[in-house]
């Protein structure tokens, strides 16, 4: 079993993924959990990130070590869910997509999770998390997800 988490969106191409797929045994599982593009709020935040004060970036850096000492984020290429699916289905090794799930509904869950690192009391607030998660399953609201989990099995 291989797990790739929060990595692919930092790559300019998905080709390294095929190397990992090549390592899978027959009936081996691959779990991809990564960021996706398409959420407009996320797009706006990414655009606005360079405009936030340097001191705040340094504060974020204490929690998120992928921010460099100048406050820059590493290059990000958000792939659309379709790009992942297409890559997997077109792979020369025979693969089956077992499950696809979307996360981070409207960024709220992601933001809450992130904020709770700085303000632990936030996690004490009663939020109908499961109701929000269930909303993610609705196809019409999928654009609001910020990450995707795909479980793939090698035939």
């Amino acid at each position, binding site marked *: 079993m291989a797990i790739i988490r929060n990595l692919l969106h930092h790559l300019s191409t998905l080709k390294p993924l095929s190397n990992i797929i090549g390592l899978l045994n027959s009936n081996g599982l691959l779990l991809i959990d990564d960021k996706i593009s398409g959420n407009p709020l996320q797009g706006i935040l990414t655009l606005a990130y360079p*405009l936030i004060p*340097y001191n705040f970036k340094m504060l974020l850096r204490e929690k998120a070590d992928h921010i460099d000492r100048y406050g820059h984020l590493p290059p990000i290429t958000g792939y659309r869910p379709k790009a992942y699916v297409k890559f997997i289905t077109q792979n020369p090794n025979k693969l089956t997509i077992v499950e696809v799930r979307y996360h981070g509904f409207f960024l709220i869950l992601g933001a809450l999770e992130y904020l709770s690192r700085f303000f632990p009391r936030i996690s004490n607030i009663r939020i109908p998390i499961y109701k929000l998660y269930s909303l993610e399953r609705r196809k019409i609201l999928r654009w609001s997800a910020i990450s995707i989990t795909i479980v793939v099995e090698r035939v």
Partner: protein
Amino acid sequence: MSIEITAFLKSFWGYLYLHKCTIIALLIIGLIGLLSVSWFHGDYLISAVDFSMPLNRLRSFMANFYGWDSRSLGSANPRISALTFPVWAYFAFSEIIGLSLSITEKILFYGVFTISGLSMYYLTTTLISNRPVKLKRLAGLISGIFYMLNPYVAIIILPLRTTSFMIYALLPLILAIFVKGLNEKRKVKFAIIAAFVMTLATSVYVDPSYLPLTLLPLLMYLIFYILVNPTKTTLFSAFKFTTLFLITWVSLNLYWLIPDAYFSSTVLANVTSAYNSVGVSFLSAVQLNSAPLLGAIRLLGYWGLNSGYKGDAYSIWATAYQTPLLIIVSFLLPFLAFIPLLIKPKDKHVLFFASFAIISLLLINGTYSPIGNWIYTRIPLFSAFFSTPYFRFGMYLTLAYAFLIGYALTELFSRITCSLNRLRRLARHMISGAPIVVLLFLIVGVYAFPLWTGDVIRPGTQVLQSNRYQMPPYYQTASNWLGTDPSDFNILVLPISTLGYAELKWANGGYDGPYPADWLFPKAVIASSTVGNGIAGIAAQLIINNQTTAASKILALMNVKYVLFQEDTNWLYVENNTSWISTSPEQFQSILNSSSSLSLEKEFGKLDFYKNNYWQPMEVYSASTSILSDGNLDQLIQIAERSDFTPSDSVIVLSNQLNAQQISTLPMNTVFVQNQTNNTSITYKEINPTQYTVHVNSSQPFYLVFSESYDNGWVATINGQQIPDQYHFTANGYANGWYINKTGTYTITLEFTPQNLFYAGATISITTLIICTVYISRNKMKNIYQKYVKKNKVSN
């Protein structure tokens, strides 16, 4: 009484209501001005490359009245007189009334930042005459806000030179009053007002290149005005107003103009040598500071934006300008600025500012374009005066953009409003105002984001220090300790930079700027290696080479009692920097601690004071023997290396620093002679930095040495009789030396004669100020006099 109060309140309310648009606009600009206070992050002070607030404000203010800058080894510095008013006068006033340094600097920043918006508001509302009052005010407000919040301010004005912000802030006001004066009948009054306003920016003329920079837009408008109104009467009246304005301004400013003019060639030579010392020529500086057209039209293109030092960017926010959002927003500026040219091409002010913007672009573009290249290479002194095209002419472009963008957005608002006639007033205004608010948000909110986030004042990174600083208390303790020593001496700072800058690492940041304790320490600090014809650098290099005995003797010749080792130096910055004479801190400490000629006297926090064991009080001293050495400063090192050389016994004279007449006239020893009996005793008194009296009791002719940098402006007189010029020479490689061929008891006066130019200029300036004030207030004075006469008649 209550009726009177009610009546007053009514009339006051009526006044407010009548001018509500103006008041709202001014309040908005005033509120935006408060943004500057947030840049301080509490009680920090802000320093920059060329500007740092003097920590002893009153002392530095008083020093501005003298053409001889007694800091370091002294130098003729007529330019500092210009600093006196208004900035240094404000500093002195703030100290007198007990304002803290932080509050003083905050008020300065708030004042200058807000004045820039207000003066642009005034210019726009003055020039847009053919529009309804509300639209005029709206255009003024937009112009004012844009002029305050734009990348040019973020790139150049704030982080680099706060004093140059003065001219940035006042230029629109000067131009507005000049324009008003051209159209007014009361020429004399407006000429005086315009001269007064321009005088408010005097501190910036410490860099004289700002003077032509201030006058150029006025000249351009004058030419434009004559071209638009080509009649004899207009020509005559414009000429009359301009002449009156110039005469008044020149007369008001003669106190610094005369000394500046007198020293102009020396100052130019000093600037050239400062450029050369860091390996830069004027033309290479122009090439570096020219901005490509595509950058310049978006108020970007400054080299420093994409540059840094040892991996740290100079402007940590600059990379954001390469993101798609800001690239799109950046093109809004030229788009909005040149739209008025398409929709109102016949408006004369649109035409003027559009032409002004194009000329500014050409000048900012510098050597990138053939015309610019021709201007900078062929026009004499153009590259010397304006070696930083983006820096100098970006101000013009921002001014032109501010007017044109204000005009464009107002026009847009007006056109949308007209097209929505059928809607109700509120809805109409909301719909037509929405695009204006969005556009304004993009160009002043998003595009000028470093001013909003406070990153415009550079936060400290690993290598580069923050522009915010809090001086550690041990500096004050060291200053108090130095103050207890009554003798006159100098302090050499280690490591030492070429241009007198300091890079220090302190808790909560650090410091980057001119040496910070320059005005704080009661003794002169030598922080530049070029001081004393470069002897300071030679001594520092000798210490690094572990030749501390020779170094100490040379330092004694420079009247250096202490070598101050700055442990708090930002070593990462200084290491391998060609503008610094330095080695590792461990190496420094090892050399200094093992030296027999330098001994650790006192430690204050991270300041280590090493006493020079060869030091004797040598600010003014007499020597019975002279050593004439054939050659240059290298000879000084050779003499200092001799074990039998005692610095205070003799004066060293280098042949290449004398003229032929002096070599033949002065009685010099061409072989090394020491330990001759000195039968001269002297005492001296400093009257002011430009005048000393020396009481002499001597039974033989002797050499008098005044250990401040040689300048032929220094004159020695005995009972009013000047010592001939051939007897005044460069002593010890840098100082003033005189051969005194007189015995007995008498007094010698040492005087820096160009100071008299300041006195003469100041007399004319003060007289002009009185005459102008009387002229402007003559009607009020008449009224007061008439009221007084009436009162007397009634009482009689």
